[in-house]
């Protein structure tokens, strides 16, 4: 029982990172209609920025994390403006953007490799919180608590933003039909920039937290997250942030428990079997609406 509880906590903590990453990935997909292969590199660069801030600038944990998040957001906006905006102007659709995102993925991965001298780095001990709360007999390490709290806060905030605020309404309108939204008085440029930076920021947050808790600050960080975040988006559905969050945590818990109680080699099989059954049985995700129709 003790072990089960500890592993559930571990699963939630990993899943929180998947969820955070998936929120941004899904947001771009739903609003801008782009399958962004470069999304993982935002996480890598955020972690690298956080690492350098801590090691070379001597910044404490929270400012370093903020810097990482800003790095993710800025990078996302740069990629959007260079890789996607020219295509958007020509109305080239989702395909061209996929290819330019692959191009940026190649470029940024390679640059991230140079930035860490092809090494996998770790945040030095003492540069991030390591306290442990005891919930009864179950230990809750600081980074796990921070990851889970971050996911809850971000999910609630973005869900509120999308469903209740004017910007959110504009985002949904652009996701539905950009031309119609423009006729309705929405400034699509603003919506695009807001979406890209929000997605980059969440990916950056996942990157910094993941880089610390997995002892891996390198270009491989984002790649690993990309596949798991992608799975969370498929299970959770891309048109609702709550879906991505719940699916991310669910995937994390499923992974950890299947490794503990079944076998590690079957762990990924279970994850992807889950993915497949969602695709067949509920092909719009957890919170998907059957009436959703894209122009």
């Amino acid at each position, binding site marked *: 029982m003790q072990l089960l509880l500890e592993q559930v906590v571990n699963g939630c903590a990993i899943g929180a990172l998947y969820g955070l990453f998936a929120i941004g990935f899904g947001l771009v*997909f739903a609003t801008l*209609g782009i*399958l962004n*292969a470069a999304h993982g590199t935002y996480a890598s660069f955020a972690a690298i920025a956080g690492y350098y801030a801590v090691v070379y600038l001597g910044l404490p944990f929270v400012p370093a994390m903020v810097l990482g998040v800003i790095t993710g957001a800025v990078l996302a906006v740069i990629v959007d403006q*260079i*890789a996607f905006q*020219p*295509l958007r102007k*020509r109305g*080239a659709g*989702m*395909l*061209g953007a*996929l*290819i*330019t995102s*692959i*191009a*940026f*993925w*190649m*470029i940024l*991965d*390679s*640059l991230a490799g140079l930035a860490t001298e092809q090494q996998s780095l770790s945040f030095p001990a003492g540069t991030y919180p390591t306290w442990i709360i005891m919930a009864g007999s179950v230990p809750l390490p600081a980074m796990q608590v921070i990851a889970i709290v971050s996911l809850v806060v971000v999910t609630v905030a973005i869900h509120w933003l999308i469903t209740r605020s004017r910007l959110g309404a504009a985002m949904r309108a652009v996701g539905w039909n950009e031309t119609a939204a423009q006729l309705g008085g929405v400034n699509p440029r603003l919506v695009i920039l807001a979406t890209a930076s929000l997605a980059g920021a969440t990916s950056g947050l996942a990157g910094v937290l993941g880089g610390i808790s997995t002892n891996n600050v390198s270009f491989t960080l984002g790649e690993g997250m990309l*596949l798991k975040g*992608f*799975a969370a*988006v*498929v299970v959770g559905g*891309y048109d609702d942030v709550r879906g991505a969050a719940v699916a991310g945590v669910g995937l994390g818990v499923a992974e950890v428990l299947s490794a503990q109680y079944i076998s590690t*080699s*079957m762990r*990924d*099989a279970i994850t*992807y*079997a889950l*993915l*497949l059954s969602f*695709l*067949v049985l509920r*092909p*719009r995700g957890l919170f998907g609406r059957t009436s959703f*129709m*894209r122009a």
Partner: protein
Amino acid sequence: MSMLLDWWAAYESTLAFAIVNAFFALSTYAVMATGILSFATVAFAAVGGFLGVQLLAQLGLPLWIVLPGSAVGGCAAALLVSVVFLRLESHWLALASLALILITRILVLNAPALTGGVNGLSVPVEAPFWLLLVLLASVSVGFWRLSVSWYGIAARAVREDPAVAGSLGIAPKTIQLIGFAISGAMGGLGGVLLAMTLQFVSPETYYIPVAFTMIAAVVLGGSYHWTGAIIGALVFTALPQIMQAVVPQVQNVANGLALLLIMIMLPRGLIDPRAWRIRRALRDARR
């Protein structure tokens, strides 16, 4: 003369890989021509590849059975998959096809009796270069005939607007099903040819990098004409080799930049029939 021979010996394998990638690109093009973005070609390639390797290595069958056998295997996998996929809306289909690649890898890893598991299998037969060329030429004739057939026209209509196509008496789902069948056959064939060119297959052989390579090849070459897939595959395979020779230090950055620039300059790809038509129309108008 000897320099030419040396050059040929050095780059023959690059050209061989380019031709193999052309099969994958054609496979991706076959579904894209009916308006579907699918990465599933990798999974069809895995089916064709491992099936072909088993037929070659275990049963020792001749190539003229193995190659069609792999194409049929890929085709069967494609028909099976399309039953589920064609129920999905376009964005979901793209995601589902990516998921299919991940699932295929797990299956390959967990069936070591058929696939060699993590260690992979070595392939006893090498694909001769002339065979690759002959196969590509015959497949090209097939694609050319298709493009001017009723099916080709119907596929273009479905790609532009399924609703309008439907009202013209074309069943979009049937056209897309045929597209998947062609894609599966091309993918299966490409899969076994890749195995015979590498002379080694493992779960990594048919994984995400191949998917992005083939999608990039099609879109780079031009996704509105079948020759675009072949040109794109050639460019995308040669690019890393060229960049390695020119700027070895930052070759991946250079690859990415080249891809980015081509896509921004020519968002419809290198081969663009619409641009040809516009140019012809302008010339006619001037006359």
